[in-house]
């Protein structure tokens, strides 16, 4: 009997008129938890009733507390007929179960009805008294904190990162039960909402149990998704990263606790006595205000210290081995590290086998093996999917570092680093290898956590859904995911990595076909985080142990150069000159804050539509899985081209979504392109004609080439990519070319590589004299696009039609924009949805592509237009979701945040800065100082002194390490011709191994942002507060893990809400647009209300996981489901010494004024 839930209904306002005769309402409230229901008195004839009820008390198991929501129903009393429901409020009481989160829920909640939307508001007070439960076998996991944030939450420190946790729960979908035929839409919707709420409660509880088992106290990067599988049921699944978090005891943190629980602080050790305000501090000791940092894993139930490398069996139920009947078709896998097309097919037989033994073992249905089994695709297709398979499983087993240091580069650091690192790695490896899945859902890491990044690993699988017969044993679904995860794991291994970071899973369902996808970034992690007793890892001093400077270390390849099963172009790192880096790096994570970047980043999207025949069952699944590899290939080609076009060399936050519809597949890849200073400059793009004899054709090609060159030059300017001022000096050093020439070179991208290749000919083993434009593929300087058919022309056009972002705007899909550091406090989160109807029945792939691309581009354009008042601003975390809700419909939903920044300071790149506020934009100008980037900022400055120390002599040895890949290129081109596809080749001649170390100057300038900005805040937000009696707390929302200009002082718990809205009067509500507009606004308002009731003033890591719209305009009906999540927090302005607002905000009734600093 471990809990008492208390609820009090205070008042209502703005109720709808339920009695037409009197224009008033006789309202009363039912409060329900589990099977217990209480009622208030009827408040007659009022639209603003005051119930002021007694405390309704529910005595319940904490298991139920975790699973069930508190259900508040407002009804209109009717003497003669049945009482009419006005609406409901579901209150998730989970945040009250954790001592560190909220202590009371109190505030105005919108009363929500699935048919009418929001109908007034109700003021509710909820408290929980938890009794301590020492039962070892308990089913609840109260006290485990959940965070959607995919980084270590701002006011915590990771004492230990335990690893991957996952769970899934299945049930029948109420919408498809027989009873649905006789009940009202409202009843059906509410049943569904309630069920999902219950299921996610259960899911969270189960995950919590696993975390406790592993010895953790929190789940970070918690990602919960619904699969509405229709007839076959409803799946709720979640993944996350189990951690042991310590509340930071220094600086801001103590305030939080002291003011939050003033009375619990003295009794901090008394775990067993319920605290006074009705809450059991399960982690009582954590409430100490500023004392010694008390390690935070002293759970009563679990042993306090898990073994250093806890072989955390992450969570999968003991699912039987994969259900092969269902796995019809190949999972296809993305290339691990996508190189230009050339690497797609270096198919030397030895490599094949190598790959399979390495990567293919775990993956049941990967293209290669399944081809003979499931279907027999035509030969070219086979070849292709093979190549894709190959790409994906490019496997490297060994550590490059060994090779590098063995090569005797001569640097003292290198020599020491090598062995040390190996040792380090071995430790980690063993630690991680013991885990079933060494996956981390985190996308940003504490400094030093990430040692090396290998590249993107991903896996997809097409499955046929069938009815889930026994909801208590969701084995099939578990097995499906297990398969995919195994595959991911083996891909990572193939890349020489022992872990996968930035990991996520998703599904796309159409009728009975389901595509399961998982993706992440293979990486090597610092073992200290997996070990016990390294609590102070985040602290900067320890970073000196790092063998490679943080500004480039993560770029260094983790695999062995000599054993690369596919040809990669490795060069010595342009920053430290010691270790090898790839020429292009793709990842799913955020750009590490310490990374050295040149210029600014930008959003890069690849979009693709593929028609497919309508089919049923297995035939359909086969068709889809045959298409997948082609789509991945195309998407990657597009990404690569666009990356080159922007003169960048790496992608962060890569997210590839493939969505299935009845007659088409949609693919959308989004990422943020960045020029990593450590990586070599990308070559240009060369256009080559198939038939050199044709004059007109040649002319055409020249025109296109010119346009491409112009675009590249323009982009360089736009994104301020002019790094290599210092690199450009190289030719001078080597060949005595004077400065003017190099200046020119910087401006014109195409001549540049050519020139270089001439200059460096001696270093490269290329046999070609490169001086003409009509380069045939196989030569290896720039990226060659060959125009041999209309497709290719189309592609090039689409490449060039991407509209540049208007001046004053930047956009990215990562947390923050690389290259922008001085955020001001203007924040505008938004959600936008568009649905496009294709009326033309016989569309071609090309036509579809164009439509889809335009749709995305126009969407972006309209964002820029709408947000023009915020200029200069950056759209961050642009998260696109595509779907094919019906035949001939394309739906694109976007959630993002626009953040203002201070332009003056961006341009000025001197280290001593910033003039106090030139002041131009919004009224709330707060400076964003880098403190927001948490503990990393101080660390960032360190590499600076190191860099000058690098001996120039490294140049010599680095040149020696150069490898020629010409032969690969040649083979590739043959293969491509075979496939009649465009050739994408890289010319290898210009490997820029002989860059000098002068890059240090540049890296200094890009690191300079770390210098903490003094605060020049000019105006206070509070000017707004005086507005007449407004009593609504301003709640800011952002998909990022922070709000610029503010400091998060407390996490109040996770927000995870699911709503259904339905209408039978679509026209009257303004059509689908009006309907959805209202619904989204309602969802926002309900999220804000819940956060405010918890005492918070912001939601971070907000995301809309699902937005499923079904319409039937003919019947004047529509239905929409939305699922949102995020972390409720209290934040204060950065400079506020005391978190005063929260004190006033917590525990009072809702009336906290608008002066909440936000």
């Amino acid at each position: 009997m471990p809990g008492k839930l208390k609820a009090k209904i205070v008042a209502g306002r703005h109720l709808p008129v339920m009695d037409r005769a009197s224009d008033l309402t006789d309202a009363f409230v039912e409060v329900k938890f589990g099977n217990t229901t209480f009622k208030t008195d009827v408040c007659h004839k009022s639209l603003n009733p005051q119930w002021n009820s007694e405390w309704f008390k529910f005595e319940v198991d904490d298991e139920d507390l975790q699973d069930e929501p508190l259900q508040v129903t407002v009804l209109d009393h009717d003497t003669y007929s049945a009482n009419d429901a006005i609406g409901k409020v579901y209150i998730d009481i989970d945040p009250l179960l954790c001592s560190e989160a909220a202590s009371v829920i109190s505030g105005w909640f919108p009363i929500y009805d699935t048919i009418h939307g929001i109908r007034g508001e109700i003021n509710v007070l909820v408290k929980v008294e938890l009794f301590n439960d020492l039962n070892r076998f308990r089913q609840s996991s109260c006290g485990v904190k959940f965070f959607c944030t995919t980084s270590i939450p701002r006011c915590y420190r990771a004492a230990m990162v335990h690893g991957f946790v996952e769970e899934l729960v299945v049930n029948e979908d109420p919408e498809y039960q027989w009873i649905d035929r006789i009940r009202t839409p409202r009843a059906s919707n509410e049943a569904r909402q309630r069920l999902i709420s219950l299921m996610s409660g259960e899911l969270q509880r189960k995950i919590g149990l696993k975390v406790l088992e592993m010895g953790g106290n929190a789940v970070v990067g918690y990602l919960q998704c619904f699969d509405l599988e229709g007839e076959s049921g409803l799946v709720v699944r979640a993944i996350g990263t189990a951690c042991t978090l310590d509340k930071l005891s220094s600086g801001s943190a103590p305030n939080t606790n002291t003011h939050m629980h003033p009375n619990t602080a003295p009794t901090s050790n008394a775990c067993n006595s319920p605290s006074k305000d009705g809450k059991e501090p399960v982690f009582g000791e954590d409430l100490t205000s500023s004392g010694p940092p008390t390690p935070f894993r002293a759970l009563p139930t679990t042993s306090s210290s898990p073994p250093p490398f806890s072989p955390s069996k992450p969570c999968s139920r003991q699912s039987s081995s994969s259900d092969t009947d269902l796995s019809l078709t190949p999972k296809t896998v993305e290339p691990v590290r996508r190189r230009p097309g050339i690497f797609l097919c270096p198919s030397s037989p030895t490599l094949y086998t190598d790959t399979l033994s390495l990567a293919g073992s775990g993956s049941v249905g990967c293209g290669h093996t399944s081809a003979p089994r499931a279907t027999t695709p035509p030969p070219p297709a086979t070849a292709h999917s093979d190549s894709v398979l190959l790409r994906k499983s490019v496997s490297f087993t060994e550590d490059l570092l060994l090779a590098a240091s063995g090569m005797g580069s001569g640097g003292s650091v290198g020599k020491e680093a090598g062995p040390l690192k190996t040792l380090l790695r071995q430790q980690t490896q063993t630690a991680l290898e013991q885990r079933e899945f060494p996956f981390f859902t985190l996308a940003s890491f504490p400094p030093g956590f990430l040692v090396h990044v290998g590249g993107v690993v991903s896996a997809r699988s097409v499955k046929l859904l069938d009815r889930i017969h026994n909801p208590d044993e969701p084995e099939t679904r578990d097995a499906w995911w297990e398969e995919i995860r195994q595959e991911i794991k083996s891909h990572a291994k193939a890349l020489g990595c022992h872990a996968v970071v930035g990991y996520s899973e998703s599904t796309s369902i159409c009728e009975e076909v389901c595509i399961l996808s998982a993706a992440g970034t293979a990486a090597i992690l610092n073992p200290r985080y997996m070990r016990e007793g390294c609590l102070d890892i985040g602290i900067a001093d320890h970073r000196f142990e790092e063998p490679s400077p943080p500004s480039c270390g993560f770029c260094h390849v983790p695999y062995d150069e000599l054993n690369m099963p596919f040809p990669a172009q490795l060069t010595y790192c342009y920053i430290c000159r010691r270790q090898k880096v790839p020429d292009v790096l793709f990842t799913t994570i955020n750009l590490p804050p310490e990374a050295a970047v040149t210029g600014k980043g930008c959003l890069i999207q690849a979009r693709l539509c593929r028609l497919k025949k309508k089919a049923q069952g297995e035939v359909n699944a086969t068709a889809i899985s045959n298409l997948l590899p082609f789509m991945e290939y195309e998407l990657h080609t597009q990404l690569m081209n666009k990356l080159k076009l922007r003169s960048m060399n790496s992608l962060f936050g890569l997210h590839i979504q493939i969505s299935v519809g009845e007659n088409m597949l949609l693919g959308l890849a989004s990422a943020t392109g960045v020029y990593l200073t450590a990586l070599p400059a990308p070559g240009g793009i060369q256009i080559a004609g198939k038939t050199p004899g044709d004059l007109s054709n040649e002319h055409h090609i020249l025109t296109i080439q010119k346009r491409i060159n112009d675009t590249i030059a323009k982009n360089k300017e736009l994104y301020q990519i002019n790094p290599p001022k210092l690199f450009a000096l190289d030719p001078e050093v080597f060949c005595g070319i004077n400065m003017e020439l190099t200046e020119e070179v910087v401006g014109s991208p195409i001549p540049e590589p050519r020139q270089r290749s001439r200059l460096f000919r001696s270093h490269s083993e290329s046999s070609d004299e490169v001086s003409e434009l009509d380069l045939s593929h196989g030569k290896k300087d720039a990226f060659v696009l060959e125009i041999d058919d209309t497709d290719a022309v189309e592609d090039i056009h689409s490449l060039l039609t991407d509209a540049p972002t208007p001046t004053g705007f930047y956009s990215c899909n990562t947390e923050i924009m690389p290259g922008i550091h001085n955020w001001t406090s203007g924040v505008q989160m938004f959600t936008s949805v568009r649905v496009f109807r294709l009326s033309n029945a016989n569309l071609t792939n090309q036509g579809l592509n164009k439509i889809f691309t335009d749709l995305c581009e126009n969407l972006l354009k309209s964002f820029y237009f709408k947000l023009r008042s915020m200029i200069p601003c950056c759209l961050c975390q642009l998260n696109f979701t595509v779907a094919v809700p019906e035949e001939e419909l394309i739906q694109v939903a976007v959630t993002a945040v626009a953040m203002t920044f201070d332009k003056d300071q961006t341009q000025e790149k001197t280290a001593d800065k910033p003039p106090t506020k030139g002041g131009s934009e919004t009224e709330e100008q707060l400076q964003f100082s880098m403190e927001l980037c948490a503990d990393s900022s101080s660390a960032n400055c360190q590499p600076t002194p190191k860099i000058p120390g690098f001996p120039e002599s490294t140049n010599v040895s680095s040149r020696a390490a150069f490898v020629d890949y010409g032969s690969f290129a040649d083979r590739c081109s043959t293969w491509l011709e075979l496939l009649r596809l465009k050739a994408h080749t890289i010319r290898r001649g210009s490997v820029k191994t002989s860059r000098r170390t002068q890059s240090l100057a540049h890296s200094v300038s890009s690191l300079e942002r770390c210098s903490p900005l003094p605060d020049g805040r000019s105006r206070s937000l509070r000017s707004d507060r005086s507005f007449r009696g407004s009593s609504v707390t301003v709640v800011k929302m952002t998909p990022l893990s922070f709000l610029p200009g503010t400091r998060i002082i407390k996490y109040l718990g996770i927000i995870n809400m699911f709503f259904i809205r339905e209408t039978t009067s679509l026209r009257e509500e303004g059509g689908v647009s009006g309907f959805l507009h209202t619904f989204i606004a309602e969802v926002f308002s309900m999220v804000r209300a819940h956060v405010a009731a918890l005492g918070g003033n912001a939601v971070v890591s907000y995301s809309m996981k699902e937005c499923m719209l079904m319409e039937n305009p003919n019947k004047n009906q529509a239905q929409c489901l939305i699922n949102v999540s995020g972390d409720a927090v209290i934040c204060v302005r950065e400079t506020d010494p005391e978190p005063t607002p929260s004190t006033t905000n917590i525990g009072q009734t809702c009336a906290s004024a608008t002066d909440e600093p936000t």
Partner: protein
Amino acid sequence: MTMELDVFVGNTTIMDEEVYQLWLDGYTVNDAVKVRMDGGVLEECEASADVLLSDTMDQYKTFQMCERLLHSPSKLGNQLLFQIPPHRQAMLIERYYTFDDAFVREVLGKKLSKGTKKDLDDIGAKTGVTLKSCRRQFDNFKRVFKVVEELKGPLVENIRLHFLLSDKLARDYAAIVFFANNRFETGKRKLQYLTFQDFAFCAGQLISNWTVGAVDNMVEDMDVDLDKEFLQELKELKVLITDKDLLDQHKSLVCTALRGKTKAFNEMEANFKNLSRGLVNIAAKLTNTKDVRDFFIDLVEKFIEPCRSDRWTAADIRLYLTHYNNSAHILDTFKHQVVWDRYMGVVKSCIFKMYHD
């Protein structure tokens, strides 16, 4: 190939003031797009017409959703659906309740009934205000009227607090309510030259001096209804014109004071009795509701027009009325000084306002 759905929702509701104005002015989406295009917003932001259309539609949707809240502005402050910064809320409300002077001039003093509403299209055609905008303005008048009708306390204050309007706008609404309640005739041709602001000023004078509220500030309708007792007492002023001695005495006092001070002295002297009779008769008749309605037309016919035909300047009027008012105090047989001042104070300032050179 059509856009089936297009939605943009910000956590902080995004509203463009320019589009808001277009919406208030009753432009259709397409017309609004045209106006915006002409305004050059496209070149400013490198956008296309599609973008503009989508943005405009979106904003219109938002405004339509907000309109319900704007009907009771106090709700806007504590509703949860839209997160709008307070200064934006104030802007939304103020603009929503702002009206066209041309339109209000047509409706002023008319009964705010369905009948009048039916005529709105005519008024719209006449004033160049779109029907949609007319309806909004008319409904605003009606809504304010209905709410303050049942409230105690000062009219302007009630409007200001209830509708969260600026002081200036609240006063204008008070005037509209006051005129609608007393049904003052303002539409006659002779009154056409007067602007809404002229009437609003007069209404302010009447409200603060002649209503029940001027003496007692806790009655219902205190600022809307004229003080009946006072109107009765006005009858006593008749003595000023019925008593021959008094009239002559009054005239000579005024003429003595005016002599040599104005070019229009001769006309003043000649017209004194006429003008005085006019003003006192207006006062005496105010007990009849019908005559109350004609108050302004009477002022024009009985006083302003004669003066104007004699080419008095505004200064002349000022001079004359001041002395006319003050001289009555010196009349020893005249006992109704308080009523006289209360009456003349208002009449004086109304005439000053209404007398355009």
